[in-house]
Protein backbone atom coordinates (compact mmCIF):
# COMPACT_ATOMS: atom_id res chain seq x y z
CA UNK A 1 0.00 0.00 0.00
CA UNK A 2 1.19 3.49 -0.80
CA UNK A 3 0.04 6.93 0.17
CA UNK A 4 -1.82 7.11 -3.16
CA UNK A 5 -4.22 4.52 -1.85
CA UNK A 6 -5.08 6.77 1.07
CA UNK A 7 -6.51 9.40 -1.23
CA UNK A 8 -9.80 7.63 -1.99
CA UNK A 9 -10.26 7.37 1.77
CA UNK A 10 -9.81 11.13 2.07
CA UNK A 11 -12.37 11.58 -0.69
CA UNK A 12 -14.84 9.49 1.31
CA UNK A 13 -14.34 11.87 4.21
CA UNK A 14 -14.52 15.13 2.35
CA UNK A 15 -16.90 14.21 -0.45
CA UNK A 16 -14.62 16.29 -2.63
CA UNK A 17 -13.64 14.39 -5.77
CA UNK A 18 -11.07 16.83 -6.99
CA UNK A 19 -8.77 17.85 -4.24
CA UNK A 20 -5.10 18.28 -4.85
CA UNK A 21 -2.85 16.13 -2.66
CA UNK A 22 -1.28 19.35 -1.46
CA UNK A 23 -4.58 20.30 0.15
CA UNK A 24 -3.57 18.03 3.00
CA UNK A 25 -0.42 19.44 4.50
CA UNK A 26 0.01 16.59 6.95
CA UNK A 27 -0.69 13.64 4.65
CA UNK A 28 2.82 12.62 3.67
CA UNK A 29 4.28 13.04 7.15
CA UNK A 30 1.42 11.04 8.66
CA UNK A 31 1.92 8.33 6.08
CA UNK A 32 5.65 8.07 6.76
CA UNK A 33 5.00 7.94 10.51
CA UNK A 34 2.38 5.20 10.33
CA UNK A 35 3.93 3.29 7.44
CA UNK A 36 7.59 3.37 8.43
CA UNK A 37 8.28 4.72 11.89
CA UNK A 38 5.64 4.31 14.60
CA UNK A 39 5.62 1.08 16.56
CA UNK A 40 1.85 0.87 16.90
CA UNK A 41 -0.55 -1.95 16.20
CA UNK A 42 -4.33 -1.66 15.87
CA UNK A 43 -4.64 -5.09 17.54
CA UNK A 44 -2.79 -3.89 20.63
CA UNK A 45 -4.11 -0.39 21.21
CA UNK A 46 -3.38 -0.49 24.95
CA UNK A 47 0.16 -1.87 24.67
CA UNK A 48 1.99 0.26 27.26
CA UNK A 49 5.19 0.03 25.22
CA UNK A 50 3.69 1.36 21.99
CA UNK A 51 5.00 4.56 20.51
CA UNK A 52 2.66 7.49 21.07
CA UNK A 53 1.56 9.75 18.24
CA UNK A 54 -0.15 12.92 19.42
CA UNK A 55 -1.83 15.06 16.78
CA UNK A 56 -1.62 18.45 18.43
CA UNK A 57 -2.76 20.30 15.35
CA UNK A 58 -6.25 18.83 15.47
CA UNK A 59 -7.68 20.98 12.69
CA UNK A 60 -8.41 19.31 9.36
CA UNK A 61 -7.92 15.71 10.50
CA UNK A 62 -9.11 14.12 7.23
CA UNK A 63 -5.63 12.89 6.36
CA UNK A 64 -5.21 11.53 9.90
CA UNK A 65 -8.49 9.60 9.84
CA UNK A 66 -7.72 8.30 6.36
CA UNK A 67 -4.27 7.04 7.40
CA UNK A 68 -5.74 5.45 10.54
CA UNK A 69 -8.37 3.72 8.38
CA UNK A 70 -5.76 2.60 5.86
CA UNK A 71 -3.69 1.11 8.68
CA UNK A 72 -6.62 -0.77 10.20
CA UNK A 73 -7.36 1.35 13.24
CA UNK A 74 -10.92 2.20 12.26
CA UNK A 75 -13.57 0.83 9.88
CA UNK A 76 -13.67 2.48 6.48
CA UNK A 77 -17.45 3.00 6.80
CA UNK A 78 -16.80 5.60 9.47
CA UNK A 79 -15.29 7.83 6.81
CA UNK A 80 -18.68 8.39 5.16
CA UNK A 81 -20.25 10.40 7.98
CA UNK A 82 -17.68 12.98 9.03
CA UNK A 83 -19.01 15.11 11.90
CA UNK A 84 -22.44 13.51 11.75
CA UNK A 85 -24.53 13.41 14.93
CA UNK A 86 -23.64 9.79 15.60
CA UNK A 87 -20.21 9.80 13.98
CA UNK A 88 -17.11 9.10 16.06
CA UNK A 89 -15.17 11.23 13.59
CA UNK A 90 -15.47 14.99 13.93
CA UNK A 91 -13.59 17.98 12.64
CA UNK A 92 -11.31 17.58 15.63
CA UNK A 93 -10.43 14.09 16.89
CA UNK A 94 -11.72 12.68 20.18
CA UNK A 95 -9.56 10.02 21.80
CA UNK A 96 -12.56 8.56 23.63
CA UNK A 97 -14.29 7.93 20.28
CA UNK A 98 -11.55 6.89 17.85
CA UNK A 99 -9.30 3.83 18.29
CA UNK A 100 -5.63 4.72 18.05
CA UNK A 101 -6.13 8.42 18.71
CA UNK A 102 -3.91 9.24 21.69
CA UNK A 103 -5.23 12.73 22.49
CA UNK A 104 -8.35 14.74 21.85
CA UNK A 105 -7.20 17.91 20.17
CA UNK A 106 -8.50 20.96 18.36
CA UNK A 107 -7.69 23.88 20.59
CA UNK A 108 -4.13 24.69 19.57
CA UNK A 109 -1.12 24.39 21.83
CA UNK A 110 -2.07 21.40 23.98
CA UNK A 111 -0.28 18.47 22.36
CA UNK A 112 3.30 19.26 23.22
CA UNK A 113 2.59 19.66 26.95
CA UNK A 114 0.64 16.41 26.95
CA UNK A 115 3.47 14.79 24.99
CA UNK A 116 6.08 15.94 27.49
CA UNK A 117 3.94 14.55 30.32
CA UNK A 118 3.46 11.29 28.45
CA UNK A 119 7.21 10.95 27.95
CA UNK A 120 7.84 11.67 31.63
CA UNK A 121 5.19 9.18 32.68
CA UNK A 122 6.67 6.42 30.52
CA UNK A 123 10.17 7.14 31.85
CA UNK A 124 8.95 7.12 35.47
CA UNK A 125 7.59 3.62 34.86
CA UNK A 126 10.83 2.40 33.32
CA UNK A 127 9.38 2.22 29.83
CA UNK A 128 12.37 3.45 27.87
CA UNK A 129 11.48 2.00 24.46
CA UNK A 130 8.49 4.05 23.34
CA UNK A 131 8.96 7.42 21.65
CA UNK A 132 6.43 10.20 21.82
CA UNK A 133 5.78 12.01 18.55
CA UNK A 134 3.83 15.26 18.54
CA UNK A 135 2.65 16.83 15.30
CA UNK A 136 2.18 20.60 15.28
CA UNK A 137 1.60 23.33 12.72
CA UNK A 138 3.75 26.40 12.20
CA UNK A 139 0.84 28.71 13.07
CA UNK A 140 0.11 26.63 16.14
CA UNK A 141 3.49 27.67 17.48
CA UNK A 142 1.96 31.11 18.05
CA UNK A 143 0.41 29.63 21.21
CA UNK A 144 2.68 30.36 24.16
CA UNK A 145 1.97 27.02 25.80
CA UNK A 146 4.19 25.36 23.17
CA UNK A 147 7.11 27.48 24.25
CA UNK A 148 6.69 26.38 27.86
CA UNK A 149 7.03 22.79 26.66
CA UNK A 150 9.86 23.50 24.21
CA UNK A 151 11.94 25.25 26.89
CA UNK A 152 11.34 22.62 29.55
CA UNK A 153 11.90 19.57 27.32
CA UNK A 154 15.11 21.12 25.99
CA UNK A 155 16.45 22.12 29.39
CA UNK A 156 15.84 18.66 30.84
CA UNK A 157 17.07 16.76 27.78
CA UNK A 158 13.82 14.83 27.37
CA UNK A 159 15.12 12.71 24.54
CA UNK A 160 12.12 10.44 24.02
CA UNK A 161 10.15 13.31 22.47
CA UNK A 162 10.08 14.10 18.77
CA UNK A 163 8.12 17.10 17.57
CA UNK A 164 7.14 17.40 13.94
CA UNK A 165 6.19 20.87 12.75
CA UNK A 166 4.33 21.03 9.46
CA UNK A 167 5.42 24.35 8.00
CA UNK A 168 3.03 25.71 5.39
CA UNK A 169 3.83 29.28 6.42
CA UNK A 170 0.40 29.95 7.82
CA UNK A 171 1.54 31.83 10.95
CA UNK A 172 0.25 35.40 10.59
CA UNK A 173 3.54 36.97 11.59
CA UNK A 174 5.85 34.22 10.41
CA UNK A 175 8.92 32.92 12.22
CA UNK A 176 11.83 35.17 11.29
CA UNK A 177 15.03 33.21 11.70
CA UNK A 178 13.22 29.95 11.08
CA UNK A 179 11.25 27.45 13.13
CA UNK A 180 14.08 25.00 13.78
CA UNK A 181 16.12 27.66 15.55
CA UNK A 182 13.34 28.17 18.12
CA UNK A 183 13.86 24.59 19.24
CA UNK A 184 17.61 24.46 18.75
CA UNK A 185 18.22 27.41 21.04
CA UNK A 186 16.60 25.37 23.83
CA UNK A 187 18.86 22.40 23.22
CA UNK A 188 16.77 20.33 20.82
CA UNK A 189 18.31 18.63 17.83
CA UNK A 190 16.58 20.08 14.79
CA UNK A 191 16.34 19.22 11.12
CA UNK A 192 14.33 20.83 8.32
CA UNK A 193 13.13 18.58 5.49
CA UNK A 194 10.88 18.58 2.44
CA UNK A 195 7.54 17.50 3.93
CA UNK A 196 6.52 15.78 0.69
CA UNK A 197 9.68 13.68 0.37
CA UNK A 198 9.00 10.45 2.22
CA UNK A 199 12.61 9.37 2.45
CA UNK A 200 13.67 12.80 3.70
CA UNK A 201 10.91 12.84 6.33
CA UNK A 202 11.87 9.36 7.49
CA UNK A 203 15.55 10.25 7.63
CA UNK A 204 14.73 13.39 9.59
CA UNK A 205 12.65 11.44 12.09
CA UNK A 206 15.44 8.89 12.54
CA UNK A 207 17.98 11.56 13.41
CA UNK A 208 16.79 11.72 17.01
CA UNK A 209 19.76 11.39 19.32
CA UNK A 210 20.39 10.57 22.96
CA UNK A 211 20.26 13.41 25.46
CA UNK A 212 18.08 15.89 23.60
CA UNK A 213 14.54 16.08 22.26
CA UNK A 214 14.29 16.21 18.49
CA UNK A 215 12.29 18.32 16.06
CA UNK A 216 11.63 17.76 12.38
CA UNK A 217 10.37 20.82 10.51
CA UNK A 218 8.53 19.47 7.48
CA UNK A 219 8.18 22.19 4.87
CA UNK A 220 5.22 21.89 2.49
CA UNK A 221 3.48 24.20 0.02
CA UNK A 222 2.49 27.60 1.38
CA UNK A 223 -1.11 27.50 2.58
CA UNK A 224 -3.48 28.71 -0.11
CA UNK A 225 -0.86 28.54 -2.83
Amino acid at each position, binding site marked *: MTVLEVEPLITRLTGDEKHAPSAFSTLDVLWVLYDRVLRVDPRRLDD*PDRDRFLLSKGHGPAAYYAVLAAKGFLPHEWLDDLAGAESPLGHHPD*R*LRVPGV*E*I*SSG*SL*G*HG*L*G*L*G*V*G*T*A*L*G*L*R*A*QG*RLEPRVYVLLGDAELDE*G*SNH*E*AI*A*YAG*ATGLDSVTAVVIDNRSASHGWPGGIASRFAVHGWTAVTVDGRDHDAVEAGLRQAAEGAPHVVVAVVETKGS
Partner: protein
Amino acid sequence: MRQAFIDTATALIDEDPRTALVLADISAAAFEQAAFKHPDRVLNVGIREQLMIGVAGGLALTGLRPIAHSYATFLVDRAYEQIKLDLGHQGVGAILVSVGASYDGSSAGYTHMSPMDVQLIDTLPGWTIHVPGHPGEVAPLLTAAAAHDDPVYLRLSTQTNDIAYADAALLRPVRHGTKALVVAVGPMLAPVLEATRGLDVTVAYTHTPRPFDTTGLRELAASGNVALVEPYLAGTSVHVISQALADRPHRLLSLGVTHQDLHAYGTPADHARRHGLDPAGLRASLTTWLP
Protein backbone atom coordinates in the same frame (compact mmCIF):
# COMPACT_ATOMS: atom_id res chain seq x y z
CA MET B 1 -2.61 22.97 55.84
CA ARG B 2 0.22 23.52 53.38
CA GLN B 3 2.61 21.63 55.67
CA ALA B 4 0.10 18.80 56.04
CA PHE B 5 -0.06 18.62 52.25
CA ILE B 6 3.74 18.60 51.91
CA ASP B 7 4.10 15.82 54.53
CA THR B 8 1.31 13.70 53.05
CA ALA B 9 2.38 14.14 49.44
CA THR B 10 5.98 13.28 50.36
CA ALA B 11 4.79 10.09 52.05
CA LEU B 12 2.58 9.18 49.09
CA ILE B 13 5.48 9.62 46.66
CA ASP B 14 7.57 7.34 48.88
CA GLU B 15 4.95 4.65 49.28
CA ASP B 16 2.99 4.59 46.03
CA PRO B 17 4.95 4.33 42.76
CA ARG B 18 1.81 5.44 40.91
CA THR B 19 1.88 8.88 42.50
CA ALA B 20 3.65 11.79 40.78
CA LEU B 21 3.95 15.43 41.78
CA VAL B 22 4.10 18.30 39.29
CA LEU B 23 5.16 21.73 40.50
CA ALA B 24 5.63 25.13 38.91
CA ASP B 25 8.29 26.43 41.32
CA ILE B 26 5.78 27.12 44.13
CA SER B 27 6.64 24.87 47.14
CA ALA B 28 9.53 23.32 45.17
CA ALA B 29 11.96 23.92 48.04
CA ALA B 30 9.70 21.98 50.40
CA PHE B 31 9.84 18.96 48.07
CA GLU B 32 13.60 19.08 47.49
CA GLN B 33 14.26 15.84 49.41
CA ALA B 34 11.40 14.05 47.68
CA ALA B 35 12.71 15.23 44.30
CA PHE B 36 16.18 13.98 45.17
CA LYS B 37 14.83 10.55 46.08
CA HIS B 38 12.31 10.31 43.23
CA PRO B 39 13.54 12.51 40.38
CA ASP B 40 11.24 10.81 37.85
CA ARG B 41 8.08 11.45 39.88
CA VAL B 42 8.71 14.82 41.51
CA LEU B 43 8.82 17.23 38.59
CA ASN B 44 9.27 20.97 38.76
CA VAL B 45 8.58 22.45 35.33
CA GLY B 46 9.51 25.99 36.36
CA ILE B 47 7.09 28.90 36.30
CA ARG B 48 4.97 27.29 33.60
CA GLU B 49 1.44 26.54 34.76
CA GLN B 50 0.03 25.60 31.36
CA LEU B 51 2.78 23.02 31.06
CA MET B 52 2.22 21.87 34.64
CA ILE B 53 -1.33 20.81 33.79
CA GLY B 54 -0.35 19.46 30.37
CA VAL B 55 2.32 17.32 32.02
CA ALA B 56 -0.18 16.16 34.62
CA GLY B 57 -2.51 15.11 31.79
CA GLY B 58 0.30 13.26 30.02
CA LEU B 59 1.36 11.46 33.20
CA ALA B 60 -2.25 10.40 33.78
CA LEU B 61 -2.48 9.11 30.19
CA THR B 62 0.34 6.69 31.03
CA GLY B 63 -1.44 5.47 34.16
CA LEU B 64 0.19 7.56 36.88
CA ARG B 65 -1.74 9.57 39.46
CA PRO B 66 -0.53 13.16 39.18
CA ILE B 67 -0.76 15.79 41.89
CA ALA B 68 -0.32 19.36 40.59
CA HIS B 69 0.15 22.21 42.99
CA SER B 70 0.44 25.99 43.05
CA TYR B 71 -1.40 29.10 44.16
CA ALA B 72 -5.06 28.82 43.25
CA THR B 73 -4.88 31.78 40.91
CA PHE B 74 -2.04 30.22 38.90
CA LEU B 75 -3.20 26.61 39.17
CA VAL B 76 -6.86 27.16 38.30
CA ASP B 77 -7.49 30.64 36.93
CA ARG B 78 -4.45 30.76 34.69
CA ALA B 79 -4.53 27.15 33.50
CA TYR B 80 -8.30 26.77 33.21
CA GLU B 81 -8.33 25.60 29.60
CA GLN B 82 -5.61 23.06 30.30
CA ILE B 83 -7.70 21.72 33.18
CA LYS B 84 -10.71 21.52 30.90
CA LEU B 85 -8.94 19.88 27.95
CA ASP B 86 -5.69 18.24 29.12
CA LEU B 87 -7.47 16.47 31.96
CA GLY B 88 -11.26 16.34 31.63
CA HIS B 89 -11.62 16.09 27.86
CA GLN B 90 -8.86 13.45 27.65
CA GLY B 91 -10.85 11.33 30.08
CA VAL B 92 -8.15 11.43 32.75
CA GLY B 93 -7.99 12.95 36.21
CA ALA B 94 -5.51 14.54 38.56
CA ILE B 95 -5.39 15.93 42.04
CA LEU B 96 -5.03 19.69 41.97
CA VAL B 97 -3.89 21.11 45.30
CA SER B 98 -3.99 24.87 45.75
CA VAL B 99 -2.79 27.29 48.37
CA GLY B 100 -3.65 30.98 48.52
CA ALA B 101 -7.39 30.47 48.87
CA SER B 102 -9.58 33.54 48.23
CA TYR B 103 -7.84 36.37 50.12
CA ASP B 104 -5.22 34.35 52.03
CA GLY B 105 -2.72 36.32 49.95
CA SER B 106 -4.34 39.67 50.75
CA SER B 107 -1.09 41.46 51.51
CA ALA B 108 0.18 40.49 48.04
CA GLY B 109 -2.85 42.02 46.34
CA TYR B 110 -5.46 40.80 43.90
CA THR B 111 -2.91 39.17 41.56
CA HIS B 112 -2.38 36.54 44.26
CA MET B 113 -6.02 35.99 45.16
CA SER B 114 -8.54 33.60 43.72
CA PRO B 115 -12.03 33.71 45.17
CA MET B 116 -13.39 32.26 41.89
CA ASP B 117 -11.41 29.01 41.71
CA VAL B 118 -14.16 26.76 43.07
CA GLN B 119 -16.71 28.25 40.71
CA LEU B 120 -14.35 27.73 37.78
CA ILE B 121 -13.75 24.08 38.69
CA ASP B 122 -17.50 23.69 39.22
CA THR B 123 -18.11 24.55 35.55
CA LEU B 124 -16.34 21.29 34.65
CA PRO B 125 -18.01 17.89 34.91
CA GLY B 126 -17.02 15.20 37.39
CA TRP B 127 -14.82 17.08 39.84
CA THR B 128 -14.80 16.39 43.56
CA ILE B 129 -13.98 19.57 45.47
CA HIS B 130 -12.55 19.47 48.98
CA VAL B 131 -12.24 22.64 51.04
CA PRO B 132 -10.78 21.48 54.35
CA GLY B 133 -11.28 23.70 57.37
CA HIS B 134 -8.43 22.28 59.44
CA PRO B 135 -4.92 20.89 58.74
CA GLY B 136 -6.00 17.57 60.29
CA GLU B 137 -8.48 17.05 57.46
CA VAL B 138 -5.89 17.33 54.70
CA ALA B 139 -4.06 13.99 54.98
CA PRO B 140 -7.14 11.73 54.83
CA LEU B 141 -8.59 13.68 51.90
CA LEU B 142 -5.34 13.61 49.91
CA THR B 143 -4.61 9.95 50.68
CA ALA B 144 -8.12 8.93 49.61
CA ALA B 145 -7.82 10.96 46.41
CA ALA B 146 -4.51 9.30 45.53
CA ALA B 147 -6.17 5.87 45.55
CA HIS B 148 -8.34 6.46 42.46
CA ASP B 149 -8.14 8.25 39.10
CA ASP B 150 -10.97 10.78 39.23
CA PRO B 151 -10.46 14.55 39.18
CA VAL B 152 -10.13 16.11 42.63
CA TYR B 153 -9.57 19.72 43.63
CA LEU B 154 -8.14 20.19 47.13
CA ARG B 155 -8.25 23.82 48.24
CA LEU B 156 -5.99 24.67 51.16
CA SER B 157 -6.24 27.82 53.22
CA THR B 158 -4.40 29.60 56.00
CA GLN B 159 -7.81 30.19 57.62
CA THR B 160 -8.66 27.31 59.93
CA ASN B 161 -11.32 26.06 62.32
CA ASP B 162 -10.57 24.90 65.87
CA ILE B 163 -11.38 21.25 65.29
CA ALA B 164 -10.82 18.78 62.44
CA TYR B 165 -13.84 16.71 61.42
CA ALA B 166 -13.13 13.33 59.90
CA ASP B 167 -16.71 12.74 58.80
CA ALA B 168 -17.51 15.98 57.02
CA ALA B 169 -17.73 14.81 53.41
CA LEU B 170 -21.44 14.87 54.21
CA LEU B 171 -23.18 17.70 56.08
CA ARG B 172 -22.23 17.25 59.71
CA PRO B 173 -24.49 19.01 62.22
CA VAL B 174 -22.37 20.85 64.77
CA ARG B 175 -25.14 22.77 66.54
CA HIS B 176 -28.89 22.18 66.62
CA GLY B 177 -31.71 24.71 66.33
CA THR B 178 -35.14 25.11 64.69
CA LYS B 179 -35.39 28.32 62.67
CA ALA B 180 -32.85 27.69 59.93
CA LEU B 181 -30.01 25.55 58.65
CA VAL B 182 -26.71 27.37 58.33
CA VAL B 183 -24.22 25.47 56.17
CA ALA B 184 -20.58 26.41 56.77
CA VAL B 185 -18.07 25.23 54.16
CA GLY B 186 -14.42 24.68 55.16
CA PRO B 187 -12.82 27.43 57.23
CA MET B 188 -16.09 29.37 57.47
CA LEU B 189 -17.17 27.15 60.37
CA ALA B 190 -15.24 29.09 63.03
CA PRO B 191 -16.73 32.51 62.17
CA VAL B 192 -20.18 30.95 61.62
CA LEU B 193 -20.16 29.34 65.08
CA GLU B 194 -19.24 32.66 66.63
CA ALA B 195 -21.79 34.55 64.54
CA THR B 196 -24.65 32.21 65.43
CA ARG B 197 -24.02 32.06 69.17
CA GLY B 198 -27.40 32.25 70.92
CA LEU B 199 -29.36 31.99 67.65
CA ASP B 200 -31.91 29.17 67.27
CA VAL B 201 -30.34 27.62 64.18
CA THR B 202 -28.75 24.36 63.11
CA VAL B 203 -25.16 24.76 61.98
CA ALA B 204 -23.83 22.03 59.69
CA TYR B 205 -20.28 21.72 58.40
CA THR B 206 -18.77 20.19 55.29
CA HIS B 207 -15.33 20.15 53.74
CA THR B 208 -16.65 18.71 50.49
CA PRO B 209 -18.91 21.07 48.54
CA ARG B 210 -18.80 18.79 45.46
CA PRO B 211 -20.51 16.50 45.35
CA PHE B 212 -22.72 18.42 47.74
CA ASP B 213 -24.58 16.32 50.30
CA THR B 214 -28.07 17.11 49.00
CA THR B 215 -29.63 14.21 50.93
CA GLY B 216 -28.33 15.59 54.20
CA LEU B 217 -29.41 19.07 53.14
CA ARG B 218 -33.01 17.93 52.63
CA GLU B 219 -33.03 16.24 56.02
CA LEU B 220 -31.57 19.19 57.89
CA ALA B 221 -33.52 21.91 56.05
CA ALA B 222 -36.94 21.08 57.51
CA SER B 223 -37.47 24.74 58.46
CA GLY B 224 -37.25 25.73 54.79
CA ASN B 225 -34.65 28.37 55.68
CA VAL B 226 -31.14 27.69 54.42
CA ALA B 227 -28.14 29.98 54.78
CA LEU B 228 -25.02 28.99 52.89
CA VAL B 229 -21.69 30.41 54.00
CA GLU B 230 -18.82 29.66 51.60
CA PRO B 231 -15.21 30.85 51.80
CA TYR B 232 -15.05 31.51 48.04
CA LEU B 233 -17.20 33.46 45.59
CA ALA B 234 -20.71 34.07 46.95
CA GLY B 235 -23.35 32.04 45.17
CA THR B 236 -21.03 29.24 44.05
CA SER B 237 -23.32 26.51 45.44
CA VAL B 238 -26.67 28.24 44.96
CA HIS B 239 -27.55 26.19 41.87
CA VAL B 240 -26.98 22.94 43.76
CA ILE B 241 -29.08 23.98 46.76
CA SER B 242 -31.87 25.37 44.58
CA GLN B 243 -32.04 22.17 42.59
CA ALA B 244 -32.00 20.00 45.72
CA LEU B 245 -34.90 21.96 47.20
CA ALA B 246 -36.75 22.61 43.94
CA ASP B 247 -39.86 20.76 45.12
CA ARG B 248 -40.17 22.69 48.39
CA PRO B 249 -40.86 26.27 49.33
CA HIS B 250 -37.63 27.56 50.81
CA ARG B 251 -35.67 30.71 51.56
CA LEU B 252 -32.00 30.77 50.67
CA LEU B 253 -29.34 33.20 51.87
CA SER B 254 -26.01 32.81 50.11
CA LEU B 255 -22.93 34.40 51.64
CA GLY B 256 -19.37 34.30 50.42
CA VAL B 257 -16.67 36.49 48.96
CA THR B 258 -18.41 39.37 47.20
CA HIS B 259 -18.05 39.97 43.46
CA GLN B 260 -15.51 42.78 43.50
CA ASP B 261 -11.83 43.57 43.26
CA LEU B 262 -11.18 45.66 46.35
CA HIS B 263 -7.79 46.90 45.12
CA ALA B 264 -6.76 46.56 48.76
CA TYR B 265 -3.99 44.90 50.75
CA GLY B 266 -4.12 44.27 54.51
CA THR B 267 -4.73 40.99 56.33
CA PRO B 268 -7.16 38.19 55.51
CA ALA B 269 -9.17 39.40 58.52
CA ASP B 270 -9.45 42.84 56.91
CA HIS B 271 -10.76 41.25 53.73
CA ALA B 272 -13.17 38.99 55.62
CA ARG B 273 -14.64 42.09 57.26
CA ARG B 274 -14.97 43.94 53.99
CA HIS B 275 -16.75 40.99 52.40
CA GLY B 276 -19.05 40.63 55.42
CA LEU B 277 -17.54 37.25 56.32
CA ASP B 278 -16.25 38.12 59.80
CA PRO B 279 -18.45 37.04 62.74
CA ALA B 280 -20.05 40.49 63.11
CA GLY B 281 -20.80 40.76 59.39
CA LEU B 282 -22.19 37.23 59.23
CA ARG B 283 -24.37 37.81 62.29
CA ALA B 284 -25.77 41.01 60.80
CA SER B 285 -26.65 39.23 57.53
CA LEU B 286 -28.15 36.24 59.32
CA THR B 287 -30.27 38.13 61.86
CA THR B 288 -31.67 40.41 59.13
CA TRP B 289 -32.65 37.37 57.12
CA LEU B 290 -33.90 34.99 59.82
CA PRO B 291 -37.68 34.78 60.15
